[in-house]
């Protein structure tokens, strides 16, 4: 398999991946807020 067979990590899907990470960060932030509020 040549070097060119590897897809570029940041392709046209870059925005989708960044969006997923941001949403996950929001989920964790909400969980942390939940922890602080109720613990």
């Amino acid at each position: 398999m040549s070097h060119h067979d590897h897809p570029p990590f940041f392709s046209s899907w870059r925005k989708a991946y960044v969006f997923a990470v941001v949403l996950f960060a929001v989920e964790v932030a909400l969980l942390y807020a939940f922890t602080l509020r109720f613990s």
Partner: protein
Amino acid sequence: MNRLDYLVLFATIIAIPLYGLWRTYNHPNLREYLKGDRTIRWGTIGLSVLATQAGPITFLSMPGQAYESGIGFIQNYFGQPFALIVVCAVFVPIYQRLKVFTAYEYLGQRFDKKTRILGGFLFLIQRGIAGGITIYAPAIILSALLGWDLNLTIWLAGGFVIFYTVVGGTKIVSITQRYQFLVIFVGMALAFAIAVYRLPANLSFTDALHIAGRMGKLQAVDFSIDPSKRYTFWSGILGGFFLSLSYFGADQSQVQRYLAGNSLRASRIGLLFNALVKVPMQFLILLLGAMVFLFYQFEKPPIFFNQPSYQRAVETGYGPKLNELQTQFDDVFARKRQLLQTAPTDPAIQQLDSRARAIRDETKKVLEEAGANPKSKDSDYVFITFVLQHLPHGIVGLLVAVIFCATMSATSAVLNALGSTTAVDFYRVFRPGESDHHYVIATRWLTLGWGLVTIAVASFCRLVENLIEAGNILGSVFYGSILGLFLVAFFLRNVRGSAVFFGAVLAQAMVLALFFTTNIGYLWYNLIGCGAVLLFAWILQSTLFRNPAAA
């Protein structure tokens, strides 16, 4: 369970596979049988991936886990979104472009036949045993509580799923999983609503959460770097990442789900859907456990949820000792409930809760002494006890159907993958050149064979730890090496077949040695196994196999 419950149960678990058989009845070629007919969209892929991961253990054990230890287990899933992004960006495009049927077929193309067979072999061992646990775990609990025969329950959960998976292949797995997951979602939502509704009328939902929080059940995120803590943000991100990367990137039961997509885009969106919904879904399941915990602060719980084990101990002469503990438990419960109703912020509540927990631990010791030690943790019986004793008829049947649907959806994906891997990576390699129809028939027979193996494993297996962890431990011991094979393939371009093969064999031997001789937390085996394959393969390629002719 009454007649209505049985009607709901059997109607649900039979209707979905029948519909799947109706939708998929044809004479598929090998590609259709292994990958579906390429009409499957991202929504079905997303649910199929979700349903494959969320087996019966998720719905039986996880609420009990929250009941016992709180919702901190959620952090184990924090590495998953990152792993899924890597799978979308690196693994899926390669699998799709090379048009492979199995993940291990790619190893054959990148390295050689023996590495492909090694990858497939490690997967088959791990998944064959895990498939048996997937069937056994709910069967042992349901048979104990409902008085059903264990082997009959195993066959009920496993027999039907073997039949429809053998007949319909990948497409029927995807279709049935969609509707099975719908049943699971509705059932769990109803259980959650009823648990909240059954709390005392003068207790608001927010007040209830405050009580659960004060009793240590709602710490979802813990940034502590204390290595003795089992679930923290950091262990979840790092350990969870490698476990998830192995599972979604190199486990054929998942690879086969997203390769069934009608396009690369569909596969990727289906996986990203999982990256976003997994943590909220697990949170709600764990929160359901916290609600059940609250419910049992006002409604007296059994001192030991696994009542059949408890009764066995009573019958073997330990009745007086257990009655004494029961009296103490009743007293502690009454005082705790009184305080919760009159002074919910009183610190004495925590002390009484600790005392109740200590009494339960003493009870467990008495059961062990009596030889009535159950095969799984008592927390695994918490949720189903709540369902059977406190939910209305009809919904009880639906919730038992949820357990069966989860068993069937996870098992069908596993059998489909085991049959495919054996057919493509072993049978077709050693017997090439046969017709497409021949390979479809062979795959069906092999799927049937694996179905019988998982039933056999389920009939003989004895669990040593919590049901969730038994599966995760088994996965972690093998997944690291499997993932290492793929990471070497993707990122160490100069490494050839022999170096990676012997590197993986050495790494797997090392992980097994560590597993049997040390107490390392199981999530770390993913990282150790994977890192060891990368390191050993690189060293072997740079030394013993330096000469290309030797590789």
